[in-house]
């Protein structure tokens, strides 16, 4: 096995040990492991580390004096409902509780990208890119022919993403897939530059152009012709910029 085929396998091996692997990924991993001693060894060492941690690392229990102190706090704090229900209805009180929790920054849902994709959730695009790098996730349609890729999106999206082949310029199109980011379907076109993959996310709208670096991935954002574009890759920024200019037709 070449080293290239091991790309992304480390996180798959970890996900398998953590019980977070889907059936399709598990199958891809099994096939790879059968022929790769390096990855077999990695799986072995991660597995025995897990076993050791669970067996030998202390899981500290709350000491009795702490438990007593907490119980005393619980007993001495007046019932919240008793304090406010006299002034607000129970339903309002419930909403107030939720509001207070939100205000305190404790809402569990605050991390979810609830708005349409924009500059602020570059993380979501990087996560989608990393997910896609795992075996079996990259393409829904694997084709270097834009006349195959473009029609594939028909009926799957409520818009038609522009699909251009840049093989002659050194950025061949290799496929496409559907992604769901921040609650909406976006087209993801996959291009290759040498050994680097570039995910180009496309969805309708317009926004300011920007450039971000998140977790070592370069993210170029721009809009053209009523479409938003996000290019995400570990490819170096200069070549990403050239890719962008080839797509926008501006040099």
């Amino acid at each position: 096995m070449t080293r290239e085929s091991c790309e992304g396998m480390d996180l798959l091996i970890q996900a398998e040990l953590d019980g977070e692997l889907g059936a399709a990924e598990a199958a891809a991993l099994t096939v790879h492991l059968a022929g790769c001693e390096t990855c077999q060894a990695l799986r072995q060492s991660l597995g025995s580390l897990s076993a050791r941690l669970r067996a030998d690392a202390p899981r500290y229990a709350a000491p009795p004096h702490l438990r007593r102190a907490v119980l005393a706090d619980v007993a001495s704090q007046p019932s919240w409902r008793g304090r406010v229900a006299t002034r607000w209805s129970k339903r309002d009180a419930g909403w107030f509780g939720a509001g207070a929790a939100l205000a305190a920054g404790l809402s569990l849902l605050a991390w979810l990208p609830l708005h349409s994709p924009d500059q602020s959730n570059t993380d979501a695009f990087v996560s989608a890119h990393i997910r896609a790098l795992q075996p079996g996730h990259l393409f829904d349609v694997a084709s270097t022919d834009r006349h195959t890729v473009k029609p594939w999106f028909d009926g799957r999206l409520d818009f038609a993403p522009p699909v251009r082949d840049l093989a002659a310029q050194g950025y061949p199109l290799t496929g496409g897939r559907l992604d769901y980011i921040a609650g909406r379907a976006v087209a993801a076109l996959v291009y290759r530059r040498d050994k680097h993959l570039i995910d180009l996310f496309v969805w309708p709208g317009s926004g300011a152009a920007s450039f971000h670096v998140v977790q070592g991935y370069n993210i170029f954002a721009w809009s053209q012709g009523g479409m938003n574009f996000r290019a995400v890759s570990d490819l170096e920024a200069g070549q990403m910029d050239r890719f962008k200019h080839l797509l926008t037709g501006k040099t």
Partner: protein
Amino acid sequence: MPKRHPEFERLVLPHLDAAYNVARWLAGDPTAADDIVQEAMLRALRYHQGLRGDAKPWLLRIVRNVFYARLDARRRAGEVPLDGIGLDRLPGATGTPETDLDQSQRSQALDRAIAGLPEELRECLVLRELEEMTYKEIAEIVEVPIGTVMSRLFRARQLMTGAAL
């Protein structure tokens, strides 16, 4: 006498040990862990009416917030170096009698290796291996995308397997 906070006692209190374990690993010190957990439980008591879903990740997120708020305060006061709690405060190395007596040498080495991890890696490892949280739950607690959880966990494990245990 009826319980004053029946919901809290039913949903949140059962996770007191988990809260303490996470606080203990984050703070690396039993006394600090006591303070963090007591404050976190008071906050949880105040806000649990807004709780939806599983209480455990919700409570652990509060514990984590309290820990970092206190750490920030101490850093501002110049009590803690900016680059971490410091290797001189590893559990085991400082000699907390109840744990030293109970643990084998092997266990102590493991303990020190975990404690020596940077905070952002250590919390992911403890949440996954000791509290058995899912990637999604860890992402909620730590407030980072799942992809980040995966890469931090992997980095933590790489460092752990690289450490002489």
